[in-house]
């Protein structure tokens, strides 16, 4: 109960009904402490960061850089580049690392369950510099084909792989992927957007070379995320977005650049968002994520089993303990969009569509799915209400 009380939005009504928010894989709700921290910053300390000598500039810089310190502690990472989110973080690897270190014919390994944000940047780079893209196929149970993965590594320079699928909830064996890749001299970039809300990641112990994530999937604000980078890869990165804040000196003949993460953070950063993210991390730090995750995956598994028992319903994914609490499904006669609108009429928010994973949709043989995703403030009662409502809809409209 106490976790729910921290989220003011959960008190609102939608179409006259109590809100049941099951769209957490798209974005999570924000606890009051995050909202307060951002308002407090704008009310008391708003100024641009770095270089300013007045009091507000000092306070703003300290508050913003505290976000980086919190992130370094949270992820046990030495280098944290603050970006606009997972998408920008992956694009940053493509532009700042891959463009500078890969040549025509080098291969980048992707999987068939990638989000578009981990496909399109590589396709654009392939058009530009002629790298080869290889997609690892899936087994019948929709897990990654690890034999195909191992076989694909010859000539590869980077594996860019989703940590936890946003559609299926399946957590890939990233430890094994990193180990095998490194044995073959291949670097690893993890798209951990869906993993960070559900597991506390120790970036140094995990050993990945790059890790991309977003604040808004873990109770932080939208518009901010980060790229964690191992030191040796960091030293191989070249600046790609030029502007203020990332330089040491600028003359009409040329420029020199900052040595630290600022080198990749041109322009005024998302200051209030940084303040909000730091507050979210402190709030999350008080929660036992591991036991909460087990509670949520049990709710997701129960939901998946209930859905499977409804006539005409197909459920995707396996919902193992390590997977995220996401359930994707379709109904054979009620269109996903219709179902989502009918659920919304009862205050239940779910997502529909291709979830920015069209190659995976093709494998599933569908154009899109419905998806429910649970987070810290959700409970079994909400799952039961969702199932009861969807049973009623199927009975009435199919």
């Amino acid at each position, binding site marked *: 109960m106490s976790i729910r009380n921290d989220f003011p939005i959960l008190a609102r009504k939608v179409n006259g009904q109590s809100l049941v928010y099951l769209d957490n894989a798209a974005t999570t709700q924000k606890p009051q402490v995050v909202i307060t921290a951002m308002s407090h910053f704008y009310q008391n300390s708003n100024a641009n960061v770095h270089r300013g000598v007045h009091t507000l500039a000092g306070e703003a810089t300290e508050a913003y850089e505290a976000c980086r310190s919190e992130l370094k502690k949270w992820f046990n990472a030495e280098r944290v580049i603050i970006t606009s989110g997972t998408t920008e973080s992956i694009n940053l690897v493509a532009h700042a690392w891959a463009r500078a270190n890969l040549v025509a014919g080098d291969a980048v390994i992707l999987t068939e369950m990638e989000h578009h944000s981990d496909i399109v940047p590589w396709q654009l780079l392939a058009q530009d510099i002629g790298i080869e893209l290889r997609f690892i196929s899936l087994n019948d149970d929709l897990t990654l084909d690890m034999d195909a993965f191992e076989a694909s590594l010859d000539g590869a320079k980077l594996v860019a792989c989703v940590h936890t699928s946003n559609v299926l909830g399946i957590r890939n064996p990233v430890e094994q992927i990193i180990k095998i890749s490194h044995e073959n001299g291949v670097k690893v970039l993890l798209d951990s957007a869906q993993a960070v809300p559900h597991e506390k990641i120790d970036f140094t112990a995990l050993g990945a070379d790059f890790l991309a994530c977003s604040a808004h999937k873990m109770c932080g604000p939208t518009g901010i995320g980060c790229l964690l980078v191992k030191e040796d890869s960091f030293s191989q990165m070249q600046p790609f977005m030029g502007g203020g804040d990332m330089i040491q000196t600028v003359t009409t003949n040329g420029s020199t650049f900052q040595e630290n993460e600022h080198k990749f953070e041109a322009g005024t950063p998302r200051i209030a968002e940084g303040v909000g993210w730091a507050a979210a991390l402190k709030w999350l730090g008080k929660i036992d994520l591991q036991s909460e995750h087990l509670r949520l995956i049990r709710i997701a598994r129960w939901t998946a089993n209930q859905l499977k028992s409804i006539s005409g319903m197909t459920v995707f994914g396996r919902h193992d303990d390590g997977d995220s609490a996401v359930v994707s499904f379709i109904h054979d006669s*009620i*269109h996903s969009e*219709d179902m989502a609108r009918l659920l919304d009429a009862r205050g239940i928010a779910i997502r*529909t569509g291709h979830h920015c994973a069209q190659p995976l949709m093709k494998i599933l043989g569908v154009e*899109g799915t419905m998806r429910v995703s649970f987070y810290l403030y959700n409970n079994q009662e909400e799952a039961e209400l969702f199932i009861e409502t969807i049973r009623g809809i199927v009975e*009435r*409209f199919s």
Partner: protein
Amino acid sequence: MTWPSDIQEVIDEFAEIEDAMERLEILMDFSDEVDELPSDEWTEQNLVKGCQSRAHVVIEQRDGTIWMRAASDAKMVQGLMGILSIAVNGATVEEVLELTPDFVIEMGVLNTLTPSRSNGFRTMFDMIQKAVMEMR
């Protein structure tokens, strides 16, 4: 805002219903109003782009008035097509061009008309007006 009388009648019908799910049910019932476009006439050209569901619309002029044929795999989209058919079928070019899409907000069946991936209604409406504009 004043609407053509047949649209006002639909708005009034929705206004009497308080329950959101019932409103959606009524919306789906309007799918019967659509002069259905057979699937063999579904082309890339008459596809409503940006709609989560598959939707096709064809606009024709018969004896100086406008008529639409349409189809969708989502019942609610087809319902919206039905309501559009009520507004458009038998109307003159000028009458169709005078329409604005806000009546669906007034009916309480769509939350927004922002053109986006998730709202093909606006695209469908714009597509109809563009086709009619070309018939001018």
